[in-house]
């Protein structure tokens, strides 16, 4: 069994309005940062996962996203798995 570090990033789908991202973008512009493009705000979830190999860790992490961590209607997710150092 290996302990993996899992990073899940969940973002609002590109086709959907992200008012939070818009507000953050406006605030950055107001602070004087020029050239701010499309800003989107999502969330990151990290956890450790004991699995026999990286494929199993990835597969289960994706299953967790599909069942709980992301809402498939509104959110897209990416999973990064790294062997613990």
């Amino acid at each position, binding site marked *: 069994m290996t302990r993996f570090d899992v990073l899940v990033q969940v973002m609002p789908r590109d086709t*959907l309005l992200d*008012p939070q991202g818009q507000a953050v973008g406006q605030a950055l512009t107001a602070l004087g940062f020029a050239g701010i493009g499309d800003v989107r705000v999502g969330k990151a979830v990290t956890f450790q996962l004991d699995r026999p190999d990286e494929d199993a860790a990835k597969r289960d992490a994706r299953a967790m996203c599909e069942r709980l961590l992301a809402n498939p209607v509104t959110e897209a997710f990416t999973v990064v798995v790294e062997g613990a150092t």
Partner: protein
Amino acid sequence: MRVAVVRFPGSNCDADTVRAARQAGADAFYVWHRETTLNGADAVIVPGGFAYGDHLRAGAIARFSPVMAAVRKLADAGAPVLGICNGFQVLCEAGMLPGALMRNAGQRFLSRPVTVRIENTDTPFTTAYANGAIFRMPVAHGEGRYVASDAVITDLEREGRVVLRYVDDNPNGSVNEIAGVCNPAGNIVGMMPHPERAADPALGETEGARVFESVLAGIAHSSGGPQ
């Protein structure tokens, strides 16, 4: 006529909902979310609030509460199930209603009256309304922007499953001004506005009471007469 009102940690419209259901003549009672049965309920209401603090997403954790298996079973048997506000979010997360509720387009938490129109009087919660009835009910939500895929929206509109629509003013940016929807069978309904807060003359609005009167009339009818 027994109406169960589910209580999660963080529910805060449960007492108002029980009161409104009782006022309509129901034997309404609370069911704690750890329960696995609904104590003989004929209908279930998932009330508003912030179940589990809305952690992760509104309704995302609540849908795994033990009581939700019982709610799903009763709904599958055709019993009326209503989700109000956070309850609507819970039913969407549970996959019992289509779509999802996202952050209000204007970013703000909204707590104010809105004008709505009844678009479908065939659900167990809307039979006591005239079709097209327009009235006011309060909304109180930060995540009330109804979204769904284009295919789902097309189906909802074609099948008359938009139960309630905002009129004149779309408070949260919902697609097609959608304020409430139902499942294909029509027995599961979700809405963002709060009928239980518009069910007493002391609160200014009373038209919300018909939501509770509707379900009572339906159950009484199906069991052969008023109880």
